[in-house]
C-alpha cells in the first residue's frame, strides 16, 4: 500500500499493461484502481463482460482480450481512474482520459502531458473530444503522443498561448 504514502502508484503496484500486440489492434481500457473501495459502475457498464469483480469492494480486473474498447467504463468512472490506451500503425500512441477542467479542450489543441506525479513529460495534440455536455460534464479527451509515453501520461493541461 505504498501508493497511499505517495498519492500516485508506481508501475509494480499497477496491473500489468496489455501486450503490445493487443495495444496495436484497437484501444483498450487500462484501470488504475488498486485499492479495494465500494465502487462498481465500470463493472456494471461493461457490455463485453471484460471487467471482473466478485464483490463491490474488489478492485476491477480487465480481461484485455475481451475488452472491445467501447469506452462505456471511462464515461462513468467516478474516480477518473480509467485510461484508454492504443498504439497506432504509424508508430504514434494515443491515450484517452477524463477531463473536467476549464478551459475545455477542442480537437487540435496543444497540451502539456503530465505523468502520475504531475510532472510535464512532453507535448501532445488533442485529436478527438467527447464534449462535456454529452457526458454529464465529464469530457473525454484523446491525445496523440509518443508511443512510449502511453504508459505514463495520465493528465493534460492546455498550453498557455
Amino acid at each position, binding site marked *: *500500500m505504498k*501508493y*497511499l*504514502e*505517495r*498519492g*500516485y*502508484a508506481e508501475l509494480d503496484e499497477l496491473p500489468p499493461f496489455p501486450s503490445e500486440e493487443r495495444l496495436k489492434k484497437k484501444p483498450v481500457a487500462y484501470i*488504475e*484502481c*488498486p*485499492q*479495494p*473501495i*465500494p*465502487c*462498481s*459502475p465500470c463493472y*456494471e*457498464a461493461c457490455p463485453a463482460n471484460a471487467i471482473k469483480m466478485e*464483490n*463491490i*469492494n474488489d478492485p476491477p480486473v480487465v480481461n484485455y482480450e475481451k475488452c472491445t474498447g467501447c469506452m462505456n467504463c471511462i464515461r*462513468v*468512472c*467516478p*474516480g*477518473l*481512474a480509467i485510461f484508454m490506451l492504443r498504439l497506432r500503425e504509424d508508430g504514434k500512441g494515443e491515450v484517452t482520459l477524463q477531463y*473536467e*477542467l*476549464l*478551459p*475545455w479542450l477542442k480537437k487540435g489543441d496543444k497540451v502539456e502531458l*503530465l*505523468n*502520475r*506525479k*504531475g*510532472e510535464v513529460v512532453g507535448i501532445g495534440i488533442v485529436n478527438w473530444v467527447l464534449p*462535456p455536455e454529452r457526458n*454529464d*460534464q*465529464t469530457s473525454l479527451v484523446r491525445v496523440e503522443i509518443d508511443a512510449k509515453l502511453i504508459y505514463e501520461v*495520465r*493528465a493534460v*493541461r492546455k498550453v498557455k498561448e
Partner: protein
Amino acid sequence: MVKVVDGRLVEHPILKFNRGKEVTIYFNGKPIKAYEGETVAAALYASGVRIFSRSFRWHRPRGFFCAIGKCSACMMEVDGIPNVRTCKVYVRDGMQIKTQSGFPNAEKDFFGVMDKLIDRIFPHGSQYTKFNNKIFREMLISRLRNFAGFGNAPKVEFSGNADYEEIECDVLVIGGGPAGMSAAINAGKYGAKVLLIDENPNLGGQLVKQTHRFFGSAKHRAGTRGIKIAKILEEELRKIPNVDIRLETKAFGIYGKIVGAVEKSKLLRIIPKKIVVATGAYERTLIFENNDLPGVYGAGGVQTLMNVYGIKPGNRGLIVGSGNVGLILSYQLLQAGVEVAAIVEAMPRIGGYFVHAAKVRRLGVPIYVRHTIIRALGKDHVRGAVIAQLDDKWRPIPGSEKKIDCDFICVAVGLSPTHELLYQAGCKMKFVPELGGLVPLRTKFNETSVEGIYVAGDVAGIEEATSAIMNGRIAGIHAVIALGLGGEMAKKELKESLRDLEEFRAGPFGERIICGIEKCILAKEVEI
C-alpha cells in the same frame, strides 16, 4: 483559467450559477453589491470582507468558517437584531448589517491592540493562572467578560406572530439531507403521514455542494454527481402526496411526545408517532498557532462558498487532512481555478480513496504524509503557513519546517455528529471514536434507546452519503412497520435494505464503521 467577476465565478466546468436580482446591502454603513439568493456572509466575502467579528477577550480578528450555521464566527447585527448568523440569512435590498464587537467596528478595532499588548504581559489564559489572589483574579475575569460583550440588545420590538400551529403526523423527519429524504420517501411510500423539516431553504443537506460523481453501485446511483442525487431524491419525495415538507424550519427540542420547532417566525407544536433524527454533522477544527485567523476555514465552508454561491475562496489554498473531504475539496478548488499549494496529512498514509488522491497528484498537487500544520501566518488574514514533518511519536521534527505560500487554509480533519437533539431527548449516548464522537446507541434498525426515535446519516456516525441514504431507508421502513403499515412488502424491503448496507460496508473502508457500530449496538433487538 476560470473567469471571475466581483469575486464571483462566472463559469465552472460542472456548475451553472444562476444569480438572482442585484441588490445593495449596507455593511457598517458602506454599500455592498449582492445578488438575491446569496447569504449575507457570502456576499460580504465576495466583496472582500474577511473580518466578521472579534474574539471576546483579546479582540482577535475572526472570519468566515463553517458557512452552515454551526460556528459563531459570522454573528452580526442585522436590521437591528443582534447575534444573527449571517451565513444563514439571505440578502434583501437595503439590509443594514453591523459588526457587533470591536470599536468602531470589527474590521478596524482599536481594541485589537489588546491582543498584541496583553499577549506579551499576560499570555492567553493567564488570567486563570497568574494571580494567586482569588478576589483580584475573579474581578479581572469578570471585567474581561464584560469587555467582551455579546452585541447590543435589540432596539426593535418583536413584530412576528407568536401563535403556534399544531401538526399531528405519523413520522417526523428532522433534517432534509440524504438520510432524512430517504427516510421520508420510504416512510411516505407505505402510506405514513410524514412531516419533513429542515433548517435550510432547500433540501439536499450537504449534497448540494458535492459536484463529484458518487461511488458505489449503479443501484445506489454511483457515477451520478451529488448535486444531481439531491435533485433525484427531492423529485421522488415531492411526488408522494402524504409527505409535508417544511423548509427554514428548526427543531429546537423533543419533549416526550411533542417536538418544538420554528418555521421562519412561526412556532410549530408537532405531535409525531415516530421521529427520525437526521441532523448530520459539523466540522471539527484543529489546534495550531493562529488557527482562529480569518482565512482558516472548514473544508465544507469552502465548498459551500464555492459550489453553492460560486464565490472564489482565494487564490492559493493549503489543505489540512487527506480524507475524502480534503481530497475532493482539492480537486474542486482546481476546477474553480484555485491553486492548491499542498495537502498535509498527519497519518503515515492518505486517509481517503487512492483514486481521489491520484487525480489531484497528477495535476501537480503535492501530498505530504506524516506532516502537520504548525502555524498560520499573517496579521489580519492568512498570508501563509508553516508545516513540519512528524516523528513516530507525533512530535514535529525540528528543522523540518517548511513555509507554504497560501492565502487560505482548509481544515478537513473530520466531522462530529450533531447529536444535541438526541441528547436532549434522553437517548443513551456513547463516545465512539470510529464514528466521529458522541453517537446514540441504536438497534440494527436504527432505533435509539428512546422508543420511537430513530437516527440515520452522519448523526448516527460519520460515514458518507450513500450509506446515509441506505440507513434512512432502514429507519423509515422500520418506523412504518412499527406503526402497523406496509405489510409483508415493507418487511421484505427492510431485510433487503439491511443486506444492501452490509454488502456496501464489506470492504476495508466499512471495517472501521462496523467496528464502531458494534460498540454502540443496543441490546434490545426488536424482531419484526
